[in-house]
C-alpha cells in the first residue's frame, strides 16, 4: 500500500489555498467533507461499528479553541496551538470514556450507547449554562485582540483551510500506519470474527479503542479548524448538528469504507452533488443526502474506490489504497 496519491492530493489542495486565497473558502468546504469522511473511516470503516454521537468530537475540538480564546486572554498567537491541543485532548478523552464503557459491547449496543452522547453533551452545555450555554461563544473579537486583525482574518480563511487539509492528510497517514501495522491485522481479524480473534490472543477492545481515539482526535482537530478558527464562532446548535455524522458516513460509503483514497473521491462528489441540489432545489440538501446514503448502502456497499479496486491488477491496487 502506497499512500502517496491521497497525500499528494491534500498537499496540492493546500498549495492551491495559499496560491489563490480567494478560493480558500471553497477548498475548505470540499476539504471539510473529505477530512470528515477520512476521520470517520478510521473508526467506522476499520471496525464496522457505528457511532451516532460522533459529532460531539467535532464539537469538543471547536470548544477547545473557543474556551481558550474566551477564558484565557493574553496568550497571543499561542492561543491557537493551545486551543487546538485542548480541543483534540477533550475529543480524545471523550472517546476514551465512551469507548472504555461501550466498545466492549457488540455493534448494536455500542450504537445505542452512543445515541445519547451528542444530544446529552449539548443538553449539558445548554442546561448548565457552561461555555456560553445556548448563546454560544463568539470568537471574532478575541481573535482580533489576540492575533491582530490581519492575522486573524488570514487565519480564518487560508489558515483554517490549511488546518482542515492538514487534518485530512494526517488521517491518511494514521490510516496508513494503522493498516500496515499490527493493529490493522488485528482489526481485520476482529471484523471477520471477533470470537475467533479473541481465541488467537487479540484484545479486540484495545484495538477498537485505538481506532476510536485516533478517529476522535482527528475530528477534534477538524472541528477546531472548521468551526472555531474558520467561522470564528462556536454555537451548540451548529457544532452538535447531528447531520455531520450522516455527511461523514455518506462520504465514506460513497468512496468506499476502509479505503484510503475513498473519502477524497467521496468528498468531492458529495460536496458538488449537495451544491447542485442546493441550486436546483434549495432546502432539499438534507433530504437528498439521506436518500443518497440510503441508496449507496443498499446498492453499492463497497463504494466507488472499493468497487474499482476489485477490478484493478494488484500492482495498480497498491497505488490506490
Amino acid at each position: 500500500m502506497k499512500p502517496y496519491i491521497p497525500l499528494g492530493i491534500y498537499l496540492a489542495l493546500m498549495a492551491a489555498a495559499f496560491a489563490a486565497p480567494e478560493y480558500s473558502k471553497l477548498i475548505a468546504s470540499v476539504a471539510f467533507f473529505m477530512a470528515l469522511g477520512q476521520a470517520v473511516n478510521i473508526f467506522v470503516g476499520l471496525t464496522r461499528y457505528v457511532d451516532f454521537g460522533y459529532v460531539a468530537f467535532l464539537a469538543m475540538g471547536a470548544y477547545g479553541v473557543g474556551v481558550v480564546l474566551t477564558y484565557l486572554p493574553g496568550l497571543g498567537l499561542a492561543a491557537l496551538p493551545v486551543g487546538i491541543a485542548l480541543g483534540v485532548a477533550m475529543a480524545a478523552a471523550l472517546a476514551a470514556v465512551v469507548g472504555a464503557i461501550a466498545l466492549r459491547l457488540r455493534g448494536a449496543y455500542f450504537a445505542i450507547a452512543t445515541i445519547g452522547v451528542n444530544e446529552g453533551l449539548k443538553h449539558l452545555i445548554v442546561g448548565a449554562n457552561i461555555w456560553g450555554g445556548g448563546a454560544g461563544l463568539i470568537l471574532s473579537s478575541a481573535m482580533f485582540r489576540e492575533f491582530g486583525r490581519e492575522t486573524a482574518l488570514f487565519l480564518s480563511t487560508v489558515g483554517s483551510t490549511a488546518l482542515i487539509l492538514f487534518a485530512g492528510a494526517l488521517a491518511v497517514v494514521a490510516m496508513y500506519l494503522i493498516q500496515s501495522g499490527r493493529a490493522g491485522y488485528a482489526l481485520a481479524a476482529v471484523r471477520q470474527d471477533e470470537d475467533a480473534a479473541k481465541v488467537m490472543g487479540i484484545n479486540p477492545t484495545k484495538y477498537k479503542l485505538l481506532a476510536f481515539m485516533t478517529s476522535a482526535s482527528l475530528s477534534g482537530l477538524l472541528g477546531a479548524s472548521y468551526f472555531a478558527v474558520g467561522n470564528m464562532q462556536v454555537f451548540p446548535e451548529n457544532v452538535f448538528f447531528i447531520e455531520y455524522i450522516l455527511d461523514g458516513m455518506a462520504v465514506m460509503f460513497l468512496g468506499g469504507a476502509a479505503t484510503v483514497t475513498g473519502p477524497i473521491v467521496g468528498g468531492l462528489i458529495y460536496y458538488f452533488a449537495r451544491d447542485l441540489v442546493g441550486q436546483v432545489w434549495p432546502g432539499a440538501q438534507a433530504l437528498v443526502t439521506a436518500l443518497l446514503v440510503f441508496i449507496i448502502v443498499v446498492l453499492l456497499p463497497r463504494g466507488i474506490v472499493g468497487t474499482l479496486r476489485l477490478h484493478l491488477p494488484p500492482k495498480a491496487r497498491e497505488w490506490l489504497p
Partner: protein
Amino acid sequence: MEVIPYFLSGLIIGSVYGLITLGLSLIFGVLRVANVAHGSFVMIGAYVAFFGFTLWGAPPPAAGIGALALGAGLGALVYYVVVKPLMKAGELNILVALFALGLLIAEAARMAWGPDFRGYTWSIGSVSLGGLVLELSKALGALTALATAVGLEVFLRRTYFGRAVRAVVQDPVGAQVVGIDVERVFLLSTAMGVGITTMGGVMLTLFIPVGINPYMGGIYTLISFVIAVMGGLGSIMGAYMAGLLFGVFQSVGYYVFSLMGFAQPFEMALFLAFVLLLLILLFKPTGLFRL
C-alpha cells in the same frame, strides 16, 4: 410533600413513554435490529393526531387507531425495503440505512408540513389528585398505553403467533426447524412495532401542547433507547415498567434541578438520561427488571 404531584405526573407521562418504547423493544427482541429511525415514526404519529384533530375533528383515540394502521403499513414497507435486503450485508449497513431513513422521513415531513411547531388542545375536563390537577385526556393517554402494553404481553403469551414470536426471540434457527415461518414473524413484528410506535406518537401529543414538529423525533429516539435498555432490550413489560420509572425520574429530576437553581432544568434532566444510559450499559446491560 411538594414532590408528590411531580411523582404522579411522572407516572402518567411515563406510561406513554413506555408505550412509545414497546415497539422498539419488540423489534430489537425479534430481529436484533436497533431501529434508530424510531423517533421519526413517533413524529408521524404526532402529525396524524394533529391533522386528524384540526382537519377532521377526530379525537385522539380515533387518530390512535388510524396511526396504528398507518404505522403497521409503514413498518411492513421498512421491512421489505430496508431490513430484509440488508440482513446479509451486516449490522453496520442496516443501522446506517435506518439512520438515513429517519432523517429522510424528518426532512420529507419538513418539506411537506413546514418547520413550525404545531399543537392542538383536546379538553375533556380534569380531576384533582394528590395535589395534581390531572387532565382527563392525559389520563386517557396513560390508560391506553397501559392497556396496549398488557394487551401486547397477553398476545405474545396466549396466541399461536405470539408464541411463534417468542420462539424466534429465543432461537431463530430452532424456531425455523420446528416449522415456524421466521420471515413472517419478522415482517409482522416490524409492522406491529412501528404501528404501536406511531400510535404512541398520537398519545404523546396529549402531553406536548405545542411540541409537534418535523425534528421532534430525535429526542424520543434517545428517550426510547434509554428506556428500552433500562427495561432490558427485547422485554415488553420491562420496557413499560422502565417507561414509568423514566417518567418519574424525569419529572422529579425537573423538580430537583429547578430547586437547585439550574436555568434549564429540563435540559439537565435530559443530560442525566444519557448518563443513566451509559451507566446501565456499563453495569447492567441486561436491564433492571427480570420480567
